[in-house]
């Protein structure tokens, strides 16, 4: 049994952090003594633990910078190997700080994020103990941010890196965040990018969260967690795109803390070759009169593997909850694997909650229809495969990103050339 503290590299918290964050880290370091590296017997890692491989053997010598950090675009933050670089954020009403600049009060807010409070996410625990800096974004009350904020999370060189983001939206504020996870060319070296993003939405706030994880290098591993706390009448919408790597994991936690909140989660995953992608979503309906909608579509080809674990937990007081979850999957080859597991836990008696999972192949009737117009069989299958995920991709509120994702998926799913 390997304990997760074997992965700790730093000897103590970074000196520049506010003292409450240092205390937080010290507590989390201590707690790691009892956290075990997941195995296939660990319930939340059942289908993915085998992908962890020799994670314990990852070396610590991270490159400091690939020079990209100096070339930031406006309204863009780069976190590279846990270090933050950004140009001036010119979005009115939006303030950006690094963790070492935080006041004690702000630091306390960071520790109240969903992921910061979760003690069952093994790698987030490790992140709590190990991050050396982070990005703190706050949107003032009543501010409707005109431009989107882009956060590029990069890893370069072999080893493990930790990124940390905290976003807080004031009352009736709104913001669009684009989070992009990527790796430098690793040249075959093993690497793990460990990211945590926590968001808190005040009453009436609206947030759009667009997350892409498009690295496909055979040696890269990504383990990320996103948490959202939703207060009264807030609205959260996400659009995630994941292309597989050796190990790719996203834990997504939504806490509907006050009445009237609504969230819509959209996700697309496409894996090929030996790749892997694991989505674990969890929606905690704590308050009454909230609504959650979740739709994930996944395509696994070759010998790749996709996991979808969607949990909706409706607490005793969360009456009048409306929940819906849909997970549709396409298997493109006999060697591909999709493990889909909806989990509904309902303790309130006046709720509507629907879930559906399908795993299948293409619809023959649709193929026939395309063929009657002269389209060859292979091409018809390709169009339908792409179409299966494009429905969700096109729902992306930022047209250029939708196009960029569509182009990427079209080239990935093209059977020709």
């Amino acid at each position, binding site marked *: 049994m390997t304990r997760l503290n074997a992965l700790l590299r730093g000897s103590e918290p970074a000196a520049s952090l506010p003292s409450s964050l240092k205390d937080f880290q010290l507590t989390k370091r201590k707690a790691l003594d009892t956290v075990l590296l997941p195995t296939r017997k660990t319930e939340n890692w059942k289908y993915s633990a085998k992908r962890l491989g020799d994670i314990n053997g990852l070396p610590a010598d991270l490159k400091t910078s690939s020079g990209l950090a100096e070339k930031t675009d406006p309204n863009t933050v780069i976190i590279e190997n846990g270090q933050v670089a950004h140009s001036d954020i010119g979005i009115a009403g939006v303030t950006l700080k690094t963790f070492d600049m935080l006041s004690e009060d702000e630091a306390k807010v960071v520790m109240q994020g969903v992921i910061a409070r979760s003690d069952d996410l093994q790698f987030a625990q490790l992140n709590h103990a190990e991050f050396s800096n982070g990005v703190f974004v706050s949107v003032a009350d009543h501010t409707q941010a005109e431009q989107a904020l882009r956060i590029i999370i990069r890893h370069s060189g072999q080893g493990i890196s930790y990124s940390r983001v905290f976003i807080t939206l004031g009352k009736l504020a709104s913001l669009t965040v684009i989070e992009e996870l990527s790796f430098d060319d690793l040249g075959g070296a093993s690497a793990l990018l460990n990211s945590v993003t926590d968001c808190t939405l005040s009453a009436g706030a609206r947030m759009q969260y667009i997350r892409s994880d498009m690295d496909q290098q055979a040696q890269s591993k990504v383990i990320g967690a996103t948490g959202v706390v939703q207060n009264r009448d807030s609205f959260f919408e996400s659009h995630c795109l994941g292309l597989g790597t050796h190990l790719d994991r996203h834990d997504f936690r939504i806490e509907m803390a006050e009445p009237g909140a609504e969230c819509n989660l959209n996700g697309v995953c496409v894996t090929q070759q030996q790749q892997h992608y694991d989505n674990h979503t969890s929606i905690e309906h704590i308050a009454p009169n909230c609504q959650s909608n979740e739709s994930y579509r996944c395509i696994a080809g070759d010998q790749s593997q996709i996991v979808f674990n969607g949990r909706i937990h409706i607490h005793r007081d969360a009456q009048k909850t409306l929940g819906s979850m849909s997970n549709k999957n396409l298997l493109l080859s006999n060697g591909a694997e999709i493990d889909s597991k909806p989990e509904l836990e309902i303790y309130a008696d006046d709720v509507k909650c629907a879930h559906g999972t399908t795993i299948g192949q293409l619809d023959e009737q649709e193929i*026939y229809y395309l063929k009657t*117009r*002269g389209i060859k069989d292979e091409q018809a299958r390709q*169009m339908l495969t792409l179409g299966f995920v494009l*429905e969700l991709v096109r729902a992306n509120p930022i047209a250029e990103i939708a196009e960029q994702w569509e182009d990427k998926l079209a080239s990935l799913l093209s059977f020709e050339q």
Partner: protein
Amino acid sequence: MLSISNLQASVEDKQILTGLNLEVKAGEVHAIMGPNGSGKSTLSQVLAGNEAYEVNGGSVSLEGNDLLDMSTEDRAREGVFLAFQYPVEIPGVSNLQFMKTAINNIRQHRGQDEINAAEFMKLAKQKIQQVNLDPSFLKRGVNEGFSGGEKKRNEIMQMLMLEPKLAILDETDSGLDIDALRVVADGVNALRSPDRAVIMVTHYQRLLDYIVPDYVHVLANGKIIKSGGKELALELEERGYGWLGIDEKAKA
């Protein structure tokens, strides 16, 4: 152009076509009428190449070539077009992308270059206007969320874009209001030419007021039992199928 001889076909072990003969020459419009369950849709699907139907006898030739030997897509490339009774919805594939891919497949088959983007857009916009659909339908998923009438107009739009030699309309008139019916009829009439042929499968005489056929055939129990000119349709409308020895109620 099309020569069907003693065609027999079954679906799920049920024999539907029991020896159908039909000759269609270039330039002609044929209407096929008949009670429910007589085999009208089966004929359309067999000609288009639906693999759910098994052909167990007879032959069909298109301009001298064995149609039954061709794949579904090759039939389309050789100029066969089926307007579906129930067009399939394909969310995620846009009408534009669908038609462009189809046109290019057909062009490639004829040894032509791919259509250029500007030329294609011009054609698509022109044809969608011709069937009275808003150009925004081009960007929508194929038939996704379309009403019944919009789906049928979309079928006609596809037909106008692909300019088939042989168009088969499978109950394209069913469920259409009078305006949509006119749009469909105008579309088909625009396509009529000395080197094309049309087979209209229909339940009602109504469509034939707008698209005047050269021949009308009555299909019953899987074969054509009576053929005549356009006046036959009027007679059927007036007298039903009973006088031909078909008990329509028993069929329905």
